[in-house]
């Protein structure tokens, strides 16, 4: 059943990022609170007007009942309060739930705030080990794979099945960096070439260092309310047109296939709710923990046929002025990747693009966007379609 009831029913009215990259003096809790307050301020609201709060836990500073602790720190007293954890997919699956909560009257105005301090709040080994615990504890982790190696298995399978080349994955890193050059907040802003990616050291074949996302500190928050209330607030509302999820496995050895993900289902569900197709999408923000993730998402979401992701990216489609600019803030490959909150920055960028407020990197025609996040090892997927106008 398609829940078209959520279409056009809620809108993003506030969005904010903290400083990102290497932010040594702020804990994950402090970043989360800063992001929340900035987003509330951006929305033109007072914190007393917030009656819903959603957070995700932080790896650098885990708290048993995270959202409750953040509400206490902020001294807000919501009637809807929860912390969630489905990895990188958390960021958008929770917006699905928040939208439903607003429509059903569980809350009127919900702040979603997520932050972590992977770079400064943990050692390199702690960060790598915590993240690789996504592997099955008895039947996968014993072999010692770091997270890039799990994704490398997918990359290699795609190469074997469809003839995809390392250069295709590298083009995704290059296009993403090109966007980051225009974003002063991005952690990495030096231009790179395909040769730079291919000559960077191998981490887990075929993935090179520059195929891998960053390790960062940072937080971001958004404010979601009903479309009706959104009209009375100062910012141009950004409407949720469609949203859908797909969940296929947790551990990569249990995936139904290595080369087609549940992004296919989440995308179909989101497009069906919005009543739109890929032809309506002006730009996209796709989860880019590693470059092959983007290539498979492009195929599964329908921007190109299965197996043709390599040729699609080689056409320059993802670059500024291309057929489908992707990760216009610089993504997790070049802007920042602070763990589970990673794609919150893709969401805040989308909101700013659709408000036409991103300055030099503003896309002229930004009307309708697709944002996609996944967690685990291509495990849990959520696709959202957002627009300047209801559809």
């Amino acid at each position, binding site marked *: 059943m398609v829940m078209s009831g959520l279409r056009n029913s809620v809108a993003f009215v506030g969005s904010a990022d903290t400083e990102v990259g290497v932010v040594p003096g702020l804990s994950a809790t402090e970043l989360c609170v800063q992001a929340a307050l900035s987003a509330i301020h951006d929305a033109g609201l007072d914190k007393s007007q917030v009656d819903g709060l959603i957070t995700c836990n932080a790896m650098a500073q885990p708290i048993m009942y995270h959202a409750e602790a953040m509400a206490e720190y902020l001294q807000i007293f919501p009637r809807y309060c929860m912390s969630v954890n489905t990895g990188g997919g958390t960021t958008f699956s929770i917006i699905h739930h928040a939208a439903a909560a607003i429509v059903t009257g569980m809350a009127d105005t919900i702040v979603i705030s997520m932050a972590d301090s992977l770079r400064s709040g943990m050692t390199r*080994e702690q960060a*790598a*080990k915590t993240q*690789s615990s996504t*592997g*099955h*504890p*008895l*039947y*996968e982790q*014993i*072999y*010692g*794979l*770091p997270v*890039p*190696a799990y994704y*490398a*298995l*997918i*990359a*290699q*399978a795609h190469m*074997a099945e469809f003839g995809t080349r390392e250069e295709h994955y590298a083009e995704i890193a290059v296009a993403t960096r090109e966007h980051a050059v225009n974003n002063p907040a991005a952690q990495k802003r030096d231009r790179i070439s395909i040769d730079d990616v291919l000559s960077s*050291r*191998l*981490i*887990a*074949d*075929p*993935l090179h260092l520059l195929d891998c996302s960053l390790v960062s500190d940072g937080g971001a928050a958004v404010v979601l309310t009903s479309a009706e209330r959104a009209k009375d607030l100062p910012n141009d509302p950004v409407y949720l047109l469609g949203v859908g999820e797909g969940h296929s496995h947790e*551990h*990569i*050895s*249990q995936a139904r296939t*290595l080369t087609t993900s549940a992004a296919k289902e989440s995308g179909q569900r989101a497009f069906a709710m919005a009543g739109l197709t890929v032809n309506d999408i002006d730009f996209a923000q796709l989860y880019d923990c590693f470059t092959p993730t983007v290539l498979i998402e492009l195929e599964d979401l329908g921007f190109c046929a299965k197996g043709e992701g390599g040729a699609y990216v080689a056409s320059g489609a993802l670059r500024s002025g291309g057929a489908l600019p992707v990760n216009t803030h610089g993504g997790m490959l070049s802007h920042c990747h602070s763990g589970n909150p990673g794609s919150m920055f893709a969401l805040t960028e989308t909101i700013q693009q659709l408000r036409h407020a991103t300055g030099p990197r503003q896309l002229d025609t930004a009307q309708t966007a697709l944002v996609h996040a996944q967690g685990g090892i291509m495990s849990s997927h959520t696709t959202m379609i957002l627009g300047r106008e209801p559809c």
Partner: protein
Amino acid sequence: MSNSAIDAHFRDGCEQGQLRLQRCTACEYVQFYPRVACSACGSDQLKWFVASGQGKIASYTVVRLPISQQFADLVPYVAALVDLQEGPRMMSVIVDSSPDQVCVGQAVRLAFRQWGSAEQQPIFTVVAPQN
């Protein structure tokens, strides 16, 4: 760790050089990892049997950065998803071969070896191509 008797039975198999799989007596489906019920039909009538040890590489990578000190002496090594002849897919490593001898579709054979901190893990070796 796990307090599951099913996991313990699998582990005991490894200590004896056996890769133990479950076959559903209702629908014949073979599954790995071991579970309390058949993941195809839901029946709890499962029978253990010992895998043949033959498989093929579904995908692989070369791990170059050790996740922790326990793996520091092992890198670089080949990690792979192996499709067992009986059907299920499992994570493992390919030992005694250089990465350029490994490819998707390559036939491999089961063995048991100490790996990282764990004794007697299921690992695989490349089956030499026939001349």
